[in-house]
């Protein structure tokens, strides 16, 4: 063996520096005969904001509880900074979970709640107070709240208290179990961004779970989509959005139009006798699904043209604020079309319309 090239050695050093903080291999957990988590492999680099999304019952909460140590994995290994921590009890893991309920202590003040992890470590009361007040400032909680009972804080304030308390523990990795789910839409949108900013400020590793891909999109560096105890796709929000691995991910992204199609002898694709033929961009397998997002589907006619078209009847129209959504009935299918309000010239309800898309705007998924 010769000595490694300098460039290679550098790359190796780089890889060492970016040794993942958390590595999961084959994590599995059964409750009776049900596999809640069914073999999850995941590598999380230090400082990443990773969101695990999936419908309720997909096992994401169980996975998070296993990571926090509140549940024992039936199988697999949790490796934190190169060490297997499977048998480490939660109070000795350098991780902290922000519960869905926030789990604030109702008999304690804001200050006492935030200082709790410090007090457990035996930090002196004076140092506890200094650090708690520091964290309160970081979370933009008014200083006067220090002596206020947590039960008298608003939803957003409690959120910040829970976060401050988690930071007081100074964990290597923070877990979040849908802590924003109970808040109203506007506050949720605000706190999502705040959380992303806090992630940027602190540089901690965040693992967040939610059933809302929209929430995941806003905050995450990477998203892992989970289904029936398995991770079906991991990627940046961009990757998940533009190239979903399968139909499940595509449909989980939000409202999409999915057409099951088959290749005809002439190379074009058709859904059935009445729907098609459609052109598909690039090479595609003989069978699969054409996925068209509502914003790429448009009403054609009056000069507007499209590569692929479907004729139908306008079923109903919905105002989404800056955009309009139309549902068009074609046979037994309802197609969803979205256009900007400026571009929209709403046709009569129940009138005949033709909708279309260009093949480069559609996805072809074979699973």
């Amino acid at each position, binding site marked *: 063996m010769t000595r490694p090239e300098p460039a290679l050695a550098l790359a190796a050093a780089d890889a060492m520096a970016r040794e993942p903080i958390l590595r999961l291999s084959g994590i599995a957990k059964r409750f009776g005969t049900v596999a809640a988590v069914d073999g999850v492999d995941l590598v999380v680099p230090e400082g990443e904001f990773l969101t695990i999304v999936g419908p309720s019952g997909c096992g994401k909460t169980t996975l998070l509880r296993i990571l926090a140590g509140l549940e024992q994995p039936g199988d697999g290994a949790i490796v934190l900074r190169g060490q297997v921590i499977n048998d480490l009890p939660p109070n000795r893991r350098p991780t*902290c979970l922000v519960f869905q309920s926030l789990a604030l202590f109702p008999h304690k003040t804001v200050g006492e709640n935030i200082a709790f992890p410090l007090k*457990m470590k035996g930090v002196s009361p004076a140092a506890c107070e200094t650090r708690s007040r520091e964290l309160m400032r970081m979370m933009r909680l008014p200083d006067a709240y220090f002596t206020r*009972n947590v039960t008298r804080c608003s939803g957003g304030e409690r959120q910040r208290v829970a976060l401050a308390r988690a930071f007081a523990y100074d964990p290597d990795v923070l877990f979040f179990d849908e802590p924003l789910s109970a808040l109203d839409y506007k506050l949720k949108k605000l706190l999502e961004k705040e959380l992303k900013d806090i992630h940027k400020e602190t540089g901690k590793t965040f693992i967040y779970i939610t059933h809302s891909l929209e929430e995941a999109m806003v905050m995450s560096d990477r998203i892992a989509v989970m289904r029936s105890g398995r991770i079906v796709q991991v990627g940046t929000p961009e990757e998940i959005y533009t190239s979903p691995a399968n139909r499940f991910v595509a449909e989980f992204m939000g409202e999409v139009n999915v057409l099951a199609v088959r290749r005809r002898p002439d190379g074009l694709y058709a859904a059935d006798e009445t729907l098609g033929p459609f052109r598909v961009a690039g090479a595609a397998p003989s069978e699969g699904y054409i996925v068209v997002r509502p914003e790429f589907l448009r009403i054609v006619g009056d000069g507007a043209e499209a590569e692929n078209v479907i004729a139908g009847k306008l079923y109903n129209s919905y105002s989404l604020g800056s955009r309009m959504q139309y549902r068009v009935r074609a046979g037994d299918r309802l197609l969803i079309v979205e256009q900007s309000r400026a571009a929209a010239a709403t046709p009569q309800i129940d009138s005949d319309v033709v909708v279309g898309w260009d093949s480069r705007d559609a996805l072809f998924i074979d699973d």
Partner: protein
Amino acid sequence: MANVQGMAEATGAGWRDRLFSAGARCALPVYVLLAAGFLAPLVTVVAFSFATPRSFDAFRSFTLANYAAIFDPANTVWLSFAWSIALAATAVLILLLVAYPIAYGLARVFGRWAGLISLLFVFPLFVSENIRLYGWVLFFIRGGVLDGTLGYVGLSAPDVLYTVGATLFGMVYVYLPFMLFPMTLGLSTVPRDLIEAARDMGASRLQIWREIELPLAMPGVLIGVLLCFVLSVGAVAEAKILGGQSIIVITHDIEIAFTYAQNWPLGSALAVLLMLVVGGLTLAVIGRIDLDRILGRR
């Protein structure tokens, strides 16, 4: 001027409205019941305590002679007070220690068996207390169940019956459910999330118990303590049946005054004093512990 008068009328109407509001009218049966069933006997007892000794002249005579007799240095009735309070306090302490693990089990560990196990603790309540205590007498008495069984293997049971210990045992046995159920309720209101969160943030089991579980279960525990203390101070059968009158508790003195001695005024004075002592102690305990704070209402 007219305005002021109008306002006065308005407040007058408001007062009348409140008195005859739907809520007040609905509460009327409760008021009547409390007045007839709770207040009237209490007033009667207080009145009797100021009546001429060895008479039935309640409401017709007024004297402090009964109280003077109790506070006479020659009277040893204070011993009965002391025994009652000491026994009740000890019983409550033992009950706390005995009931906590069971309550913890019922609230967290036993799962679907909890219902059945609670039923077992309720079951003895269907049998009269006196009969159950006589059952224990048969168990502990010389030649009884315990002694007889041990006799088969050539041993004999220690003489525990008719002692202070037996009285205490009787109290703990009889009042266990009254400590257990409020305590279980208190413990089951502690959200599991909080315990898990505390553990996740580095708390040991002891720290969790001290910082989270106990303070949050405290309302239930306190209710249990108060119930058991008041019941134990008022208990008479345990000292008579299991204690065999080895000591005289204050309730026994009161009973003697009302029955054998036919001195109702003295019995009433003792009862009033007992109420004051127990009420004072109870208020002192409740006053020291801020329930609102514990329940997170402040």
